[in-house]
């Protein structure tokens, strides 16, 4: 883990190129200050974000995962974010079943002109993740307590 200990937590963002990545650029151009934790992975469309990428990140040690795309109806590829919305909603509801805090995964919509909204999203999400603290690591040994099957 190469986060700066004690200062940062590991937050991974998947941003669609046309809206949210642009929104993050707009926030930058406007010098809207944000916490430094987030690392951004650029994807063409939120529809490209397989929910399994989110799972992979969370299992591999991310403390929070943020997915952001174009607002519904504004998708550069017309329908990509509609698929994303269904799949990510499914994931958001499924994660807590296996003991992953659903608050560690957030998906939202930010357009290229919404620099301020992006700043707010990053700031709020980062502060929430800091409040939740580092995600519990998966136990890597075999001495787990066995729970009796019902």
């Amino acid at each position, binding site marked *: *883990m*190469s986060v*700066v200990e004690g*200062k*940062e937590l*590991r937050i*991974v963002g998947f941003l669609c*190129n*046309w*809206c949210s*990545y*642009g929104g*993050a*650029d707009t*926030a*930058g*151009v406007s*010098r*809207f*200050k*944000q*916490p*430094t934790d987030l*690392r*951004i*992975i*650029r*994807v*063409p*469309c939120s*529809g*490209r*974000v*397989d*929910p399994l*990428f989110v799972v*992979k*990140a969370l299992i*591999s*040690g*991310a403390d929070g995962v943020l997915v952001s795309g*174009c607002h519904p*109806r*504004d*998708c*550069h*590829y*017309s*329908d*990509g974010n509609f*698929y994303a919305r269904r*799949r990510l909603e499914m994931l958001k509801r499924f994660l807590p079943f296996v003991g992953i805090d659903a608050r560690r995964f957030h998906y939202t919509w930010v*357009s*290229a*002109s*919404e620099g301020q909204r992006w*700043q707010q999203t990053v700031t709020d999400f980062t502060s929430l993740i800091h409040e939740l603290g580092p995600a519990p690591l998966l136990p890597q040994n075999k001495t787990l307590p066995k729970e009796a099957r019902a």
Partner: protein
Amino acid sequence: MRVGVFICHCGNNIAGTVDVARAAEETAKLPHVVYSTHYMYTCSEPGQDEIKQAIKRENLDRVVVAACSPRMHELTFRRTVEKAGLNRYFFEMANIREHVSWIGEDKDLNTNKAIEAVRMAVEKVVRDKPLYSSSFKVNKRVLVIGAGVAGMQSALDCAEGGLDVVLVEKSPAIGGMMARLDKTFPTIDCSICILGPKMVDVAQHEKISLHAYSEIEEIKGYVGNYQVKVRKKTPYVDWAKCTGCGECMEKCPTKNAYDRFNFGVAPTRAINIPFPQAIPKKATIDAKFCRQIQKGKCGVCAKVCPAKAINFELQDQFVTEEVGAIIVASGYGLIDQELLPEYGGGRYPDVITGIQYERLLNASGPTSGHILRPSDKTEPKSIVFVSCAGSRDKSIGIPYCSNFCCMYIAKQAILTKDHIPDSQSFVFYMDIRAPGKGYDEFTRRAQEDYGVKYIRGRVSRIYPKGKKMIVQGADTLLGAKVEVEADLVVLATAATAAPGAAALAEKLHISYDTHGFYVESHPKLRPVETNTAGVYLAGAAQGPKDIPSSVGQGSAAAAKVLALFSRDMLESDPAIARVNQNACVGCLKCAKTCPFQAIKDEVLRGGKVVANVIETVCAGCGVCTSTCPCGAIQLQHFTDNQLLAEVNSLCLS
């Protein structure tokens, strides 16, 4: 693999809050990286030369540039590495300016973040595959949406350039807002006199086919090959037969129809030709007011029409046009006066909007150019203009400046003095915004030569007192409250996006801002392009604009289209989906979810069914890749392995 990393200072933009030297030192230690350096301006010519030389000198086969946003310079550097002999896709960018140096203040954290951004880019670049564009044929016809002055300019320039143009206009007549204006600033030349000939050119140009009273129903396809379905709204008049004689309008018994062209300054007939110079000069029935259509009783127009053109049974018709590029010049709208209750909110007949006043001034308007106030048809002697009526007003959600009001108010005040020499005009203003050529001189002339009284301050309330309107406001230069008795008040109501702008943007797959104005590719460097290839912007659809700017953009958009069409073949973006036929199990879920119907099934020898991507149709969204359970269809340049490598570089290391 031999990766070179180039970290840009961007002057002080990056180096100010990122320790670029340390970043270069640290990233040099990353696997695959054999060379890492930092440079003042990587995008400059010497900066690009440095990359090219390093590729040769260090024998690099992959390049990472850590600088600004890839949305800014990805293309620049792709060309650079290509010139040095690498495939242009053997390149990745780490955004350490917009996403790092400009938003974080802690230099240590920023530097660490920049190093990680480079690490992610390195992990991705080593998994880049060489990609090669293929080419496809371009349909050299252009669609122009909106026949205001911007759209007409685009259409004429494209047509002069030899292109076939399809021009679609929502209203029954072309000309847009400019056709309604009386005179234009700062020259005071007659608006229709300079626009009229252009309108005629549009109508007569053999390369332009005009669909008036039509709207865009659906758009399919991609740059070079769009299919556009146009809805031709029914005018209930067979335009092929209509001669524009106006007999029907004369005889129509419905005399209180709302006059859209004149913004309701006076009523019109249910069947009408919007204005004398209208092109096409054809009659249209407003169904909402037509007695025959509403109540089934009347039909006077049908009886008097000498050409027997009236047909109440006519339905909307659809035509499909195939084009290679689209220019969007759909114009702007104006806010509803009801949003301004403190100014009467549309309750007082003698408080009108700037565009309504324009129609009162206009010789072909309902008052034949005599300024008569609506309530009692008398000539007003004291006229108050209120600028920023809604503009720059956060409380109603319009924080922006409407751009042209200061100028048209000055023009209208001058014209008022011309029409009524013994009148006195007052202008309440926040600031006078007159930055164009000859503009400031013009507003000064209004004050100095025409005696218009400019009062710097906002109007708080307008109310009637007897036959007068009292305009109550502040004079911030005097620091006092002022009240002006007016016969007529003109509100410079804020410009907004055109009604239906958002719906049109969704059909075009272009972005629009929170106010509904279309978003250009780059605010400075690509002002008439959109992020959707082949779709260009002109005029006030992108933001409020005056006539010269709209015309300029109209020509600029046309130039872009002409440049695009200067080639017979276009190169496709090779970052599209590709199927691994061995892994594909032929479930075709990808085909079902593809937003572009770009995936079809293919039967291999031996009977195995697999998915097959139609290269020219695929737009590269990657929905298929996240749909495919077995990873058999991969979006090139954003493959599962590349994104997983990025995730792993962040989470597992």
